[in-house]
């Protein structure tokens, strides 16, 4: 633990990490098991599949119940952009939050271009989630695999 002996908070080199100056930081880092973003997406997941999906462009499923993680992702594509994305996940808080965050990332700003979506990696999901414990990173890795599987499915269904 680093102790800075200064009474002038403005001059303190670590003021951005100081929980005295940023009370939210204290809460964020110590009061829950994961980041604020993970918590939000876990308790209020976005784009969850609620009814039988119709007219979707592609679907991808990765993982296995034996491993403790299964992600299923449906995408609706228009003019090479992902316009809509729905999903279901069997897994822990990180897994559920990762899929939810992924669904937001691919549909925001009018929808991600397929060529960009194929470049999306686990690290991108991780960064948006504010990080995950090392042992949980594999949960976010499944997300981008499910997306690529869904895009592959779409391309194989597409009329030439």
């Amino acid at each position: 633990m680093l102790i800075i002996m200064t009474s002038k908070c403005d001059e303190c080199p670590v003021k951005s990490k100081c929980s005295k100056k940023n009370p939210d930081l204290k809460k964020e880092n110590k009061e829950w098991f994961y980041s604020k973003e993970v918590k939000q997406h876990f308790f209020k997941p976005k784009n969850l599949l609620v009814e039988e999906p119709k007219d979707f462009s592609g679907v991808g499923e990765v993982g296995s119940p034996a491993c403790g993680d299964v992600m299923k992702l449906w995408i609706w594509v228009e003019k090479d952009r992902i316009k809509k994305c729905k999903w279901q996940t069997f897994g822990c808080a990180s897994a559920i939050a990762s899929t939810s965050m992924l669904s937001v990332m691919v549909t925001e700003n009018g929808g991600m271009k397929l060529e960009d979506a194929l470049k999306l990696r686990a690290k991108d999901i991780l960064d948006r989630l504010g990080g995950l414990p090392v042992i949980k990173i594999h949960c976010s890795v499944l997300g981008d695999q499910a997306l690529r599987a869904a895009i592959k499915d779409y391309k194989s269904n597409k009329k030439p």
Partner: protein
Amino acid sequence: MSGIYLDYCAGTYVDPRVKKAMDKYFTEEFANPNSFHGMGLEANKAVVKSREKMAKILGAKSTELVFTGCGTESCNMAIKGVAFEYRKTNSKGGHIITSNIEHHAILDACRWLEGQGFELTILKSDKYGLIKAEQVKKAIRKDTILVTIMYANNEIGTVNPVREIGKVCRERKVTFHTDACQAGLLELNVEKLKVDLMTLNASKIYGPKGIGLLYVRTGVKLTPLFHGGGQEYGLRSGTLNVPGIVGFAKALELIYKEGGKEAKRLTKLRDYLITDVLKNVPRSYLNGHSTKRLPKNANFTILDIEGESLLLRLNEEGIFCSTGSACTSAQLEPSHVILAIGISKQAAHGTIRFTLGKSTTKKDIDKLLKLLPKTVEDLRKISPVRLKSPWR
């Protein structure tokens, strides 16, 4: 932190009467009981008194109780102590019998000894987590030096027939150790149980953390794990945790006096919880034996959802429990006990454990029972998995 604590198998609060008994040994009678002066003598008196009190309750002699730092240490001391003692006069061989539902403190110590040249038999439990005396009898060989079978399982609550196993080991003259950390509300008299070594842990019986006990029958020789000042008959060197010892003795005294009534109360609450969950949460299954189980333990497999997410959703509502899911373990493997009773790897991730305690009321259970079905339903809506059964 307020909420409903249902994780008593993991740890209990310190009973206020225990805390009161410990207090003066932190600040007034704080001397090292081995010190050769008046204050040391006072501290030593407290240790002697505590030891005598515990020995009487356990049906043992004072000289047969060794204080350690925790249950894990006692287990390691027992198993490795017997093994290393055997090695002194036998350069190889030595057979150890244990079971597949033991705590890691036992299993990992046994596996390590296997790596050191000992032979290991791991008995398989049945679908309730029970080990039968007959299995132990069949497994004992001429070179068997130790049998170690858990009294009551911390995860699924199943209570093993320790008396019968003790009888078999006595007849065959094999040293028998039992991990009794969770058995506070059960019979603990060492004569009745016919155990040679027994592990207890204060933190599971409303005593403080950081103090354990190993009962060592007269005549059982152990090689100590620690070298040092020679405390505890040379078996466990180290400054004695006087407040811990006093607290442990008080905790054991209380559970001995009040345990019978508490066991009845908890059994009733537990069965109420189990009946309701099995009725109102579709596709839920009880893990462990329905009657040969700890009064406080209720462990379920709930299909199609994952344990950590259930845990965190309940946590958000102020209900604190535990899971056998891989996601909450450091190794990312589901509970070996859940797998041992025949639950599939797929279903093992969806286990949840509720363990009750002295402060648990029917109101607490009712709150859980109100929340659980809806929480499971919400998580099932999120999940694409539909398993046919919990079994392999």
